[in-house]
């Protein structure tokens, strides 16, 4: 099978004052893959997601989606053309029901009418396993359920690429197992996944390829095994003594 490129960043750079949060990062994402991204805290993972999804404008460099430049586009536009994302800290619409939360992204991310958006919302919520909680308020739900809701909101836009920012943080091993299964199903639907994850076991089992960021630079890229043995990566995580 020939790999078809769907998303790429070219020397994406983001600065906050004197701090270079993202330093000329190149990432290529092929259609249908699950790409993992790891790196110590503050290494620029979320910043890269924010640059791709249009929340930040990069200081230099480009973001291309299906060959089209999307570098200075607004987040809502990027969502509408097929790149959805979740947040590390879940951001549900607290005063709206679970279904209404998902309906918003079906209405605007996918551009459906009210009736179709409702159906789409119900379908997606069933898929992520929140069918029984359709009329609950997010504040009354557990952390794993709120993460599922975050995922459902992204899925309701019918994305081609989904950026997942630590979907499994704070979950128990059993819950992680469930989410892993869910993400595999998402991928089987043909959705390309780009995920930040600290839980190494999850990244190792799910991703074919992993990139590693440290101090805003990409320091390694390869299969999980290659990355795990990479000296730069070990140094970044554990310090010089362990190399």
């Amino acid at each position, binding site marked *: 099978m020939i790999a078809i490129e769907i998303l790429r960043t070219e020397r994406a750079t983001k600065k906050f004052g004197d701090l270079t949060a993202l330093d000329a990062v190149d990432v290529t994402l092929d259609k249908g893959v699950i790409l993992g991204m790891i790196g110590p805290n503050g290494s620029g993972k979320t910043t890269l997601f924010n640059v791709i999804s249009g929340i930040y404008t990069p200081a230099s460099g480009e973001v291309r989606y299906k060959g089209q430049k999307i570098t200075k586009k607004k987040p809502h536009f990027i969502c509408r053309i097929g790149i959805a994302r979740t947040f590390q800290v879940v951001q549900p619409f607290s005063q709206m029901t679970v279904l209404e939360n998902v309906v918003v992204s079906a209405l*605007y991310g996918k551009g459906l009418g009210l009736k179709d958006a409702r159906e789409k919302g119900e379908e997606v919520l069933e898929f992520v396993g929140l069918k029984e909680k359709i009329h609950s308020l997010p504040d009354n739900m557990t952390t794993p359920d709120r993460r599922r809701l975050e995922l459902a909101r992204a899925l309701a836009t019918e994305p081609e690429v989904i950026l997942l920012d630590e979907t499994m943080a704070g979950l128990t091993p059993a819950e992680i197992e469930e989410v892993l299964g869910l993400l595999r199903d998402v991928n089987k639907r043909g959705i390309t996944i780009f995920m930040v994850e600290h839980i190494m076991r999850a990244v190792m089992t799910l991703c074919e390829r992993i990139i590693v960021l440290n101090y805003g630079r990409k320091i390694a890229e390869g299969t999980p095994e290659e990355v795990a043995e990479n000296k730069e990566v070990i140094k970044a995580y554990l310090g010089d003594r362990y190399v």
Partner: protein
Amino acid sequence: MVVLLAIVPIDISGYWLRLITFIFMWIGLAGSINLITGYTGYLDFGHVAFFGIGAYVTGIVMLKLGIPFFPAMFIGAVISGIMAVVVGIPTMRLKGAYFAIAMLVFAEGMKQVALVLEGITGGGNGLSLPIYTNYTFFYYCMFGAVLLTVGTTYWFERSKFGFALMAIREGELAAEVSGVNTFYCKLVAFGISAFVAGIIGGIYAYWMTFLYPGDAFNVLTTVHMIVMAFFGGAGTLLGPIIGASLLAIIEELLWAEFRYTYLIIVGFIVVIVVLYIPRGIVGLVREKVLAK
């Protein structure tokens, strides 16, 4: 209820007609601010500006151009809406208190404009409109304004656009990455909200027949709108109706009894509302019903 209110003015005295017309005006104004503050989540501390602009433009257009009342009122409301979009382009990038302060400054600025442009607005001498004393006419005008406000709010509640606004209120960034063009939606909502306030301002101008910058752009009017909307329940259809009616009646009764101290008592009521029923009367009832 609507039918009842529509036939009421046939045989009631001037006092009651005037009181109910005022209550209608407050329902309309509270409903107008509810669109931007209750549904969209932007606390507008300068909303009176759009009431004032509607009032002054209506008056000026009638006097200087000799245009009849209804088209004049419409022009006033449209200009009000346009002003909201214009001022919203910079201010709606601000959040929370910063937006509130920017709008407060805008309203005060408009008051100064009305004072300075003496040639057009009459400045500190005020502006006298053509006198029209058919108070039943104004009753129906304000009643129409209430229907307009309620209708718009109902549309906000039920439409795709309303979903976008509520999502913006609950989390602007999350709304944006869900595909909502938040900036555009906020501006449209602000424009609509100001249009409604402008209509009411126009009616008020013709009804009162006299405009003075300090009255038309009185910051207390904004405070009243906010308190009424929150008292009844911001972000709900019935909230501003209940809040405005109750508070207007309470104030009227207190004013009759305690002419000089009634505002202190009103202040106490506001404090109690903020402390004990932050979601307003409608929110309180809804919680009780849900708890059952």
